[in-house]
């Protein structure tokens, strides 16, 4: 088991003929993903890495029904493509593109809610269930299958932490990038709930950062979880009012600070790593403690 995607998930790539679309299609195929079609208006009938191209999502879905789609088109076209995918019956939509306008993101999320579509991103590296399926842009080599779920707001920081887990022999069930934007689809809680329900996942690593209150909201849910959560947060030293790369990574009006998040997570019983390299040890510690019955009368 894994969450959201597995070895049977059939995937479309929207924007497959672009440079990014082509390259990452080849990488997804190499990681075992079932990419069954690509969309590129006007280029229907061609092939990219052996994957058939269609002009529209509807045409692709007539040929073979896909459950998931990944969007690689420029920011101004994302809204149209996202609507197309959801209207066409896609149930898991991954939006890699960065700089999607805020209002477009809100419209996309409203439509997703009405269509009961899970959206990952925008501005995400995607998600991977190692050795089963990948929908995204992360390097294949750093992941190994296992029982730790990872959910993160940031890409390269997740790579850093996942590599550390992998080097320590700790495999991952699924790794999900929520996206660095202000308005994104899946939240920490959505993903934590799925990890909690996934029999294969034994512990969850949460990689957060300053800005917004996603980590604080997640803490409320973490309190109710039976599985241990190990958190690492970036942005301890960030000055207020400055957007640290991600649109959502900003301390505004005293909200979204590092301290507020750490306090909330610790109060919820999460392990919080002060330094990035402490994560794998904390995971090991958490897994050992979990196997010892914590209550005895």
């Amino acid at each position, binding site marked *: 088991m894994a969450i959201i995607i597995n070895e049977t998930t059939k995937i479309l790539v929207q924007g497959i003929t672009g440079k990014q679309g082509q*390259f990452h299609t080849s*990488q997804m195929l190499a990681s075992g993903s079932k990419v069954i079609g690509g969309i590129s208006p006007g280029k229907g009938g061609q092939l990219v890495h052996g994957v058939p191209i269609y002009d529209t999502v509807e045409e692709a879905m007539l040929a073979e029904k896909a459950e998931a789609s990944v969007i690689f088109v420029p*920011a*101004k076209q994302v809204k149209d493509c996202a609507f197309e995918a959801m209207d066409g019956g896609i149930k898991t939509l991954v939006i890699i593109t960065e*700089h*999607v*306008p*805020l*209002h*477009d*993101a*809100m*419209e996309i*999320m*409203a439509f997703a809610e*009405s269509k009961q579509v899970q959206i990952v991103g925008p501005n995400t590296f995607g998600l991977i269930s190692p050795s089963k399926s990948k929908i995204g*842009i*992360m*390097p294949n080599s*750093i992941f190994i299958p296992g029982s730790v779920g990872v959910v*993160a707001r*940031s*890409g*390269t*920081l*997740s*790579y*850093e932490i996942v*590599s550390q887990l992998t080097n320590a022999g700790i495999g991952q069930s699924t790794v999900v990038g929520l996206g*660095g934007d*202000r*308005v*994104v*689809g899946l*939240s920490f809680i959505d993903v934590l709930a799925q990890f909690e329900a996934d029999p294969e996942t034994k512990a969850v690593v949460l*990689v957060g*950062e*300053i800005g*917004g*209150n*996603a980590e604080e*909201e997640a803490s409320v849910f973490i309190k109710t979880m039976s599985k241990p959560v190990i958190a690492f947060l*970036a*942005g*301890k*030293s*960030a*000055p207020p009012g*400055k957007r*640290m*790369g*991600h*649109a*959502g*990574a900003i301390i505004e*009006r*005293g909200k979204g600070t590092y301290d507020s998040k750490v306090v909330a997570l610790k109060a919820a019983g999460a392990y919080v790593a002060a*330094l*990035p*390299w402490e994560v794998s040890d904390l995971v090991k510690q958490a897994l050992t403690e979990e196997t010892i019955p914590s209550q005895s009368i």
Partner: protein
Amino acid sequence: MKLYEYMAKEIFRNNGIPVPKGRVFTSSDEVAEFVAQIGPVAIKSQVLSGGRGKAGGIKFASDPQEAREKARELLATDIKGLKVDIILVEQKLSIEKELYLAITYDGARRKPLLIASAAGGVEIEQVAEELMIKRLIDINIGLQPYAAREITRQLGLKGQIAKEVADIMLKLYQTFRKYDAELIEINPLVVADSQALAADGKMTVDDDAAFRFGKDVPLVEEKTAVEKRAAELGISYVELDGEIGVMANGAGITMATLDLINEFGSSPRNFMDAGGGSSKEATASALEILLSTQPKALLINIFGGITRCDVVAKAIIQVKETMDIQVPLVIRLVGTNEEAGIALLREHGIETYRKIDEAVAKVVAFVKAKGA
């Protein structure tokens, strides 16, 4: 992008939201003439900073002579370190009531959010939570008149004023949508001479939607010269005031790198997320920007995922050979082909580490040694 008050009010006026009579000036010369026409005025410095009133950025004058003098004073001052280049001279209002009204977004709920309060005129951060009315808006139907009526009821408004405020709410929401705003705020929304109008205006529009801005959205430069150059190169950059110039790939890892520099007892000169670019040109431009801020040392932290470390190493070597880098350069390089990358850099005398803690310790040690 934050707009100045006078720009926000111009947009309000064009979209049917009443604002006080006023005019913008860049010198005090013609202020007296204008005041002679409209009577007592408020003279408001146009700076992009909150708490302007408290910082002395708003003055009142009752006659043309006084107005000219106060305008001259304001144009010669700094408000919270920002030079005042523009003033807005507006008719003084006899205020009966001050409300707060804003439309922004709730990131967690993924929806537009309307905030209103009967306790306007003070900084909203100081208004107690129970005095604020918050209402999420379904973007599919927008703000409908019934919702505006309900909010005015909760605000305790009645009669003609309730109608006017509801109308302003609807127009404010339309403006929020039309201009891709992140925040649009009227504080205070006043009742003066039995009429509701926007006595102040704040608007932040979404830079990512700039491609569809019409000519009626002005451009405001908030970035420093260096930040502007970085933006042109597609590099995410924030100037800070510390010692060590930092370049990394990815926002999260860059933030974590800055945190570590602080943890080890130094401070970062900047935030730079150079993205996945590994080309010689991109690396050179990024390094040029870093060096232009005169840091005491440089730290490059690259996690080569899709990007190959040997390619990154070659780019850095080429750049180092063509540019005169006077400060210590420490590189942390890990990922695909890291052995080849590290070997290449070592051959060229560049300190390279696999572990981030070792790299940060080294670069901080360089800075400390220089300071001693």
